[in-house]
Every structure is written in C-alpha cells, then in structure tokens.
C-alpha cells in the first residue's frame, strides 16, 4: 500500500518520470543496479536453503548436536543456543524459528522438562545469528550490497564480534537459568533412543545440499565481488544444486517466498521515495546535529537509534531507510569510518528486534501455544529487553575501546574489578554478606525470568 501511495506521490505530485520507479525498484545504472543484485542474491540463497530444509539438513544437524548433550541440562542449553545461532546464520529468522522451536518442544517432551527457558533463549539468539554472515539476514544483504562490503570483510568486522557477544549472552543465560534446569535421568535415557535420521528425507539429498551450502560460503569468502558478484555465485550454486539433485525446478520455485520479494520491492519504492523527497537527508542531518562529526557519537547514535526503531517497525524497511541516512552522515568520513557506521547499523537493525516481543517474535509465541507449551508475552519481553540492552552496551564498550582506548580500558577494568569483588564476596564473604548477595541475585533473577 505504501509503495502505491509513494508511486502516486512521485509521479503525480512530484512530477517524476515513470523510469524513477524502475530505478527505485532495481537501482540506477550509476549505482550498479544495487537493488536488483540484492533481490537475485536473496532468491539464490532462498533456493539453496529451501532444498537443504526439505532434505532435513538443519533438523538433522540440530538433532545430532542435541543428542551429543546426553540430556545434561546446561550442556543442552549451550547446544540449543549454538544450534540456533548456526541455523539462523544461514536461514532467515522465521524459518529458523519454525525448525528449532518445534524440535525443542519435542525434545522437552522426551526429557520431561519445561521448554520455556530454551525457547526464550533461542528466540533472543536468533537475531545474533542474523549478523554472522553478510547473507544471514536481509538487512545485511541490503547494507553490504549498497556499500560494497565483501563477505569476508563483513564476517571479520561484524560476524566475529557477534560470536563474542553470543559468548557473553550465553554466559548470562547460564547464570540466570543454571539452577532452574533439571532433567530427570529417565528422560536422558529416552533421548538416546530418539532416532535423528528420521528427520532426513534422503541421505543423498542431505549430503548434496550440505556440500552446496559449504561450497557457497567458501566461494563467497574467496571470490571477490569485483570478479563475480555474490548474487551470481548464489544463483549459479542454486541452479547447479537443482540439476544434480534432479529435483523438479517448478517445485523449488513454488516454495520461494515471493511474498517477501514483493514486500522488499515495495520497501525499495517507499525508501527510495523518502530519499528523493529529501526526508532521509533531513533525518541524517538531524542525527549529525546531535553527534556532530564525532564518529564515535555517530556510531552510538546509529546503533541505538536503529535498534529501538527496529523494535517497533520491521527491520527491513528501517534498514532501507537508514542506509541513505548513514550514507549522508558519512559523506566526508574515511572509508574505514564509513564502513563502521554501516556495521553499527547492521548490529542495531538486527538485534533491536528482540527489544519487544513484536515482529518475528510473535511467531515463537504462536508456535509454543500451538504445541501446548505457552510462553507469556511478559517473560519474553523481560528477557529480550534486558538481554538486548546488555548486548548493545557491550558493543558500545567495544566502540569505546576502538576510539577512546583509555576510557574503554577504564570501563572494562572497573567491570572486571566488580566481577572479581562479587566472586570473592560470594566465595569468601561472611554468612550475612552471602545471604544478602543470594537475596539480591534471587531478586534480579526474578526480575528477568520471574
């Protein structure tokens, strides 16, 4: 609807030629048809992951890793979290949730446990998986295609940092849920009997699709985009996979999410319309007015602003609107600083989704409800809000370390000292102190998960 309104405004009120709509949809020749490249990359990766999903690849890997836990509670939590991040690094958030949540609930039935802690942590971590690779989420594809960031470059500057944030988030979850997670021994034995091969359609297709996925990631890493663009690599890999698996192309094409493609095209028109009419430039100038030319302040503003905006509105339109804003903010910045702003946008746009249970997170609540394991809105909101702010604070400290190393070291040092002090008091403190600390930690835990 927004795209249609934009069309009418641009053609009839602003007096543009129809060619402007084509330019907004696919990008201009001067921009190198950036939007068209994004669309082809999305279609290519969708085809490969659809085949892998049909083969049961992700369910199989998840099942195998879950069985490795032997049903030990904390190990199971770690494995569920790792599997979620891994799958969401390849698939979109919705498909990840559709695969992992029912599997979690089924495993919980076998183990005779409450799946809520596992589902809640997965729902929060799905968005971290979205910042591992440049193809892990649509905001990343839009950003990297626009700025011309290579696959490996994105992984080093965003993906690796996401792994560090994942580690700290996992620590937080273990701290919160350690005492709540108890698994009966009989459940652990029953888990051993769960035959993971039952999720695989056929073994040959499983291996073919996994090899293609790994091949795609290797090619995207090694082949520079100036030689072959990522979208051509993805589409070629998809076509080769369809040919060697002898699957019906019609069947695979019918499963492509065309609704998402059309949604994206609509977003391109709306965002493009806002750019042409000067709205995004005004927003960029507003943000510049707050932060000035200080790159550190700009990074923080983009990070927190995009995070909180994407908590209220879908992160795809937010990213599309903020790309030209970030572009106008960094007109005079160095290439490194410019790219940092866009990395910051990737963090904020992807992770902000967890600040509220709206958007994709509603799907988690629905699936849990359908499987007779309801999760309350309130518990989702509390964990998501607190964890996301915790993650954004860690990233902010990281930026502080890059730009103001002394201040960053002071902050890190202070945090380290506080953690050591808490540990010493907990281990060696008097009974009164320990009792006060336990009461305080109990209250904090209740605040987050109670």
């Amino acid at each position, binding site marked *: 609807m927004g795209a249609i309104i934009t069309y009418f405004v641009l053609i009839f009120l602003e007096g543009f030629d129809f060619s402007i709509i084509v330019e907004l949809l696919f990008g201009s020749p001067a921009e190198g048809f950036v939007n068209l490249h994004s669309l082809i990359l999305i279609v290519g990766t969708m085809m490969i992951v659809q085949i892998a999903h049909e083969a049961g690849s992700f369910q199989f890997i998840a099942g195998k890793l879950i069985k490795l836990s032997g049903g030990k509670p904390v190990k199971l939590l770690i494995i569920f979290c790792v599997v979620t991040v891994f799958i969401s690094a390849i698939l979109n958030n919705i498909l990840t949730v559709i695969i992992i949540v029912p599997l979690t609930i089924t495993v919980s039935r076998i183990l005779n446990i409450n799946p809520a802690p596992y589902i809640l942590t997965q729902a929060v971590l799905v968005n971290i998986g979205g910042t591992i690779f440049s193809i892990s989420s649509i905001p990343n594809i839009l950003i990297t295609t626009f700025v011309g960031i290579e696959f490996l470059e994105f992984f080093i500057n965003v993906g690796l940092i996401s792994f560090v944030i994942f580690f700290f988030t996992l620590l937080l979850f273990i701290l919160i849920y350690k005492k709540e997670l108890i698994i009966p021994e009989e459940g652990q034995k029953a888990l051993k009997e769960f035959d993971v*091969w039952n999720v*695989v359609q056929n073994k040959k297709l499983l291996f073919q699709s996994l090899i293609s996925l790994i091949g795609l990631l290797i090619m995207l890493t090694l082949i520079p985009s100036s030689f072959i663009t990522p979208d051509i690599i993805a589409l070629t890999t998809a076509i080769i996979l369809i040919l060697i698996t002898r699957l019906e192309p019609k069947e695979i094409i019918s499963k492509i999410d065309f609704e998402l493609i059309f949604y994206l095209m609509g977003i391109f028109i709306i965002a493009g319309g806002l750019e042409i009419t000067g709205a995004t430039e005004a927003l960029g100038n507003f943000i510049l007015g707050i932060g000035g030319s200080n790159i550190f302040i700009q990074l923080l503003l983009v990070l927190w602003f995009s995070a909180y905006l994407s908590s209220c509105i879908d992160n795809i339109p937010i990213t599309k609107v903020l790309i030209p804003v970030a572009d106008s903010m960094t007109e005079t910045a160095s290439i490194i600083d410019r790219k940092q702003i866009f990395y910051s946008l990737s963090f904020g746009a992807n992770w902000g989704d967890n600040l509220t249970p709206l958007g994709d997170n509603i799907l988690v609540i629905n699936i849990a409800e359908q499987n007779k394991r309801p999760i309350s809105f309130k518990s989702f909101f509390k964990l998501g809000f607190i964890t996301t702010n915790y993650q954004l604070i860690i990233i902010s400290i990281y930026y502080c370390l890059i730009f103001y190393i002394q201040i960053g070291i002071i902050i890190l040092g202070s945090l380290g000292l506080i953690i050591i002090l808490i540990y010493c008091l907990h281990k060696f403190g008097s009974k009164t102190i320990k009792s006060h600390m336990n009461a305080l930690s109990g209250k904090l835990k209740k605040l987050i998960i109670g």
Partner: protein
Amino acid sequence: MKIVFKNIQRIQNALPEVKHIVMFYNNGIIFQTTFEQEINIPKLGENLAAILNHARKLYDVSHYNFDNYKKIIFETYDMSIIILKLGEDSNIALFFKKEEEKELKLTAIKRYITRIEELIDMDERELILQDILAKEEEFKQLKELLAEKEKVTEELNAELKNMEKGEIEGDKKEIIYKLNSTDVECVNLRKDLEKLTNEIQQLKEIIEKNHKKE
C-alpha cells in the same frame, strides 16, 4: 540399554500381524519407527500428523469434540493402519496385515503403549505439577529463612531490652539499625511467601479445571 525400542519389540512379539510401528508427535516428528530409511520418513510423519489434523477439522466442522480421540482406523484389503493416541502430543501408528476376520488385540499391548507414553511424552498436567513442586520447595526454603530471621529479631530485641535495663553495654544505635533491617527482610519474606501461596493455589486450580474438562 534400549528402553523404548524394547517396547516396540514387545508389541511386535505380542502382535505378529503388526508389520511396522511409527511413534510420532502431532507436529510430524517421528520418535522411532521400524520403517527403513528407503522410504521418506519425514514425509511419513507429516502425513500421519496431517491425518490427525484433518480428522480434527472434520470434527470441528461437524461441531463434535476431537480432543480425546482414542484411535483412527484405516482398513483396506492389503494393509490396515491404526493410529492410537499415546499422550498429550504423541501417537503410535501400527501398520498391520489383517488375517481372516480376526480383530487386532490391542488389549495385549496396552501396558507397552502406556509405558512408551510415559517415556516419550509429558502432558501439560505434569508440567504444572513440576512447577508446583518447584514452588513448594521454594516456599519451604523461604519459610526456613523467615524462621531464622524471626529468631534473630527475637535475639536482637532481647539484647536491646538488656541494654535498656543496663545489664549489658553496647551500641544501641547499631542494634536498632539491625532490628529495622531484619524487620524489613521479614516483611518482604512474608510478602514473597504469600505470593508463592497464591501462585501454587492458582496452579492447583488450573489442574482441577483441566481435570473437570476431561
């Protein structure tokens, strides 16, 4: 030691006409099956779950209640299928060849089915019971803590009284400060205990309500 698979073996021994068994959940995931990997096992699970889903829709459209379905039977000349409800979300499908007019003796395998259900499924009632047990344990711990704090309050009051009588010397202000903070802790503990009592009561009411529905 194979637990669940042992029970599948026992079912096949008790009913030799059963050729294949599939234990599956309502979301289509198959826990175990005697079918070999040559057939599309995920598709088998999906289709079995779809049968239950369609049957549910059929009942809904005709304004009948499907919730406590017991079994669904498909009978053909060649191979018949019985789908039996195991637990809240689990089912077992038996593929069998019917010989002559003999009926499949399900009573012979009832105890194995019950055992499988206990091992691979946990209904909502059990989940709520687990929650109640956890809260009762927390209640017990808080009550012990409250008893400790009340004892401390008593001791501090006695100490203060003795100080006022001049029997002992000490820092009156410190005692009063400790008394006040212990009082506050006791009040908070009592509030927490009341909250827990209400939560346990609510959970028990949910179980009661669900039991009446059944």
